[in-house]
């Protein structure tokens, strides 16, 4: 039987955040599943839903808020698997600014990622009753670029970080952990699901496609499992795949170690509907001028693929 | 009489400028027969260049009519009926002297080998042999003007329009070129319309001299000048010659708006 092709679009550049997929490819798990997987790295201006709309990928890695938002806007993405159980998103502040609790955020300048990643933040601020439109009673929002420079250069009081990446850049930038105040979104009750696998809804009516995705998800989860158990080797595989030649080994090992804490490889990637509901509730509460989603979505996830993977 | 080469009827031309119209030509009537050598003479700004430009279809008359070889000026231009020597040399700075003289030949599709031969012959005629490979800015003003004459002659047009071609030349060269031009004219029976400021030159070369006056540009006198085909330089001392020159001078003076 012929090998089938799958194109996977990542959410960000090649790094240990996506180690499972690179491992599955490098260690032959996809090949064993009769798949020829092409992994396209992402980047700051690659929006996976857009790539999907352009018909350039079969499956994408995306955060759930962005996926639900694009669903409302006419690109009906459906979650088929959720390897990441925990959210790694945090807001990291310089302790010297005196910020200790979320209430201290009033009047501060905060760095936030946009392009679909701002929704958890907006939900959190809505819950805190902090306007984000620049009024003095609220917070001043900066559209944060790709790094933590605004914090290091004291242009911002807090910046968005991921547990596995930017946080360590702040540390590398000369801060000791005790000089930082960190708010994990998970701890603030506004955690939303990150890094899930999504496909276009209409393709799920094709049984062959569902079967192919089933094999893909299973092989990917095997990759994640291996990566979790062999973090240093997984980091090395990621490095092999970094075409920009800019990543460092130390950083990727550290990232892999942190990623492992967010994973759940036990359920074969099966999405926990409770996590989904929490995410939707968080988003519906975000409010504001341009809400992420205006009503609870339907059909935004399926277990069909994970079930097919059994 | 054969059909005129140029027939102008009530020709007039008005330039519209920011501060009002300028009447450059007004009710201009002139027939030029084949083989004639017509000189235009008149004060600066009287419309000589403008007239040549109308003939050459570089400017359109705003009134009256004109034909060139029985056709409209445009048809004549497209048929390459004439060669034009401008008042300024207008050489292309990126071409050598030889390249400039060969340019019209190139445009008219003369084979490459012949081009160089013909261009060199014309340069020799205006005494510029040896300067073929120089660029225009390396030549003196008079030399540039001579190069532009060679350029106009190179493709041997039947009608020659020349706007003060010898203005920048010294008397000796000028005499020499006058003789050459006369010889050429006698041999080829070209029709020549020639602008000059020199009365002796006009008398020496022409079959008829058109004296013009300015604002508006019009004809004040047409002086016949039948000194015969054979005109040695010495003819300029004869009473007949001086008489014609005197008449031209008077016409010219009459046309001047200010007292001299």
């Amino acid at each position, binding site marked *: 039987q012929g090998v089938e092709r799958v194109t996977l679009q990542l959410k960000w550049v090649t790094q240990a955040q996506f180690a499972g997929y690179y491992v599955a490819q490098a260690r032959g798990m996809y090949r064993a599943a009769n798949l020829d997987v092409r992994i396209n790295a992402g980047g*700051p201006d690659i929006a996976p839903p857009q790539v999907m709309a352009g018909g350039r990928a079969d499956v994408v890695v995306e955060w759930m808020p962005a996926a639900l938002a694009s669903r409302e806007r006419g690109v009906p993405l459906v979650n088929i698997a959720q390897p990441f159980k925990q959210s790694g998103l945090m807001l990291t502040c310089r302790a010297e600014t005196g910020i200790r609790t979320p209430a201290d955020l009033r009047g501060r300048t905060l760095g936030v990622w946009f392009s679909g990643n701002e929704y958890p933040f907006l939900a959190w601020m809505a819950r805190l009753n902090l306007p984000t439109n620049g009024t003095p009673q609220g917070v001043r929002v900066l559209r944060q670029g*790709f790094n933590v*420079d605004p914090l290091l*250069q004291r242009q911002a009081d807090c910046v968005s970080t991921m547990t596995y990446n930017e946080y360590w850049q702040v540390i590398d*930038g*000369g801060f000791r952990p005790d000089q930082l105040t960190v708010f994990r979104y998970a701890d603030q009750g506004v955690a939303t699901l990150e890094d899930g696998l999504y496909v276009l809804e209409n393709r799920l009516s094709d049984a062959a496609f569902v079967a192919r995705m089933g094999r893909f998800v299973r092989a990917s989860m095997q990759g994640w499992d291996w990566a979790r158990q062999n973090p240093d080797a997984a980091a090395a595989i990621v490095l092999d795949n970094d075409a920009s030649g800019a*990543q460092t080994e130390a950083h990727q090992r550290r990232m892999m170690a942190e990623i492992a804490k967010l994973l759940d490889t036990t359920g074969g990637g099966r999405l926990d509907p409770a996590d989904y509901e929490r995410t939707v509730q968080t988003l519906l509460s975000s409010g504001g001028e341009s809400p992420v989603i205006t009503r609870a979505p339907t059909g935004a996830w399926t277990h069909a693929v994970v079930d097919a993977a059994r | 009489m054969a059909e005129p080469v140029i027939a102008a009827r009530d020709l007039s031309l008005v330039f519209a400028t920011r501060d009002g119209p300028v009447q450059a030509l007004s009710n201009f009537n002139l027939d030029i027969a084949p083989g004639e050598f017509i000189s235009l003479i008149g004060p600066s700004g009287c419309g000589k260049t403008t007239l040549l430009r109308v003939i050459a279809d570089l400017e359109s008359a705003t009134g009256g009519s004109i034909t060139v070889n029985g056709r409209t000026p445009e048809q004549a231009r497209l048929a*390459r009926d004439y060669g034009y020597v401008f008042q300024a040399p207008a050489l*292309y700075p990126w071409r050598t002297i030889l390249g400039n003289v060969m340019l019209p030949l190139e445009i*008219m599709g003369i084979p490459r080998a012949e081009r160089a031969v013909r261009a060199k012959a014309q340069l020799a005629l205006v005494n510029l042999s040896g300067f073929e490979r120089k660029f225009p800015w390396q030549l003196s003003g008079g030399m540039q003007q001579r190069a532009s004459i060679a350029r106009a002659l190179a493709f041997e047009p039947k009608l020659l329009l020349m706007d003060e071609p010898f203005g920048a030349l010294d008397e000796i060269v000028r005499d020499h070129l006058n003789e050459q031009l006369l010889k050429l004219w006698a041999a080829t029976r070209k029709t020549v319309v020639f602008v000059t400021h020199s009365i002796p030159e006009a008398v020496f070369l022409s079959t008829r001299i058109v004296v013009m006056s300015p604002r508006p540009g019009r004809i004040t006198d047409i002086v016949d000048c039948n000194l015969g085909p054979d005109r040695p330089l010495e003819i300029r001392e004869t009473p007949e010659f001086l008489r014609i020159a005197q008449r031209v001078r008077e016409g010219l003076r009459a046309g001047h708006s200010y007292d001299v």
Partner: protein
Amino acid sequence: MSRSIIPVLTICAGLVLLWYGGAIWMNWQVVADTQARAGATPGLMDMVRLTLNHARPLLPAPHQILDELWRSTATLPVTSRRSLVHHAWVTLSAALVGFGMGTAIGVLLAVAVVHVRALERSLMPWIVASQAVPVLALAPIVIVALGAMGLEGLLPKAIIAAYLCFFPIAIGMVKGLRAPDAMARDLMRTWSATQAQVFWKLRLPASLPYLFAGLKVAMAAAVVGAIVAELPAGAQAGLGARLLAGSYFGQTIQIWAALVAAAILSATLVGLLGAAERLVARRMGARA
């Protein structure tokens, strides 16, 4: 060319001095903060040493950039993905293809506009509006759209580069093709030269100074275009990918090394154009 060596070196020397001063000044605060947080109180010389060797400086010192450049070019095989030479080549090829297409389009547009008067009014506004469309911001969509049309690899990048560089050429060329004065044009008219002849023998030679000025600007624009287009193409390889990766990880030194490499790349290309211009000018009898 050789006449300019001494001035260039002198000014470079001045700039490098300024640069070191600037590096100390700009990095001072960050270093001071870090030291203060660490509870250290370094002396003046130590501070200077630290500001000039900071791993994440606001402004890296020249020697840091040179060191990075040296490590990423000379110490690696050019085929390595960590070699800047490899990345420069990726960018260069897209830039050159784009430059070629952009030049062709720019010149053709200029020729059309100059020869067909009606186009002046109808086409020019669109050309202008096309440049006001921020393709760079749209590059991701453009790349996706082109990909949907089956264009992949070098070509989408080259198209974006071409889009950026045809404009200066078209604008300069329109001016240049119109540069010949009335008498030069009249001369052609008297010979009833065809439009093509007027173009080849008068307008084109007269426009060359304008064309070269446009080409130089366009060359730089093409490199920029190729680099920008690398980002949404997945930032897999090329100087743009290096810039982005550097930026993403806050590797200021790596950004600067990639920047310097990009600058050297297009300065070299612009320099080659300048040499070609001098050669052409010499053949066209320019005064020494």
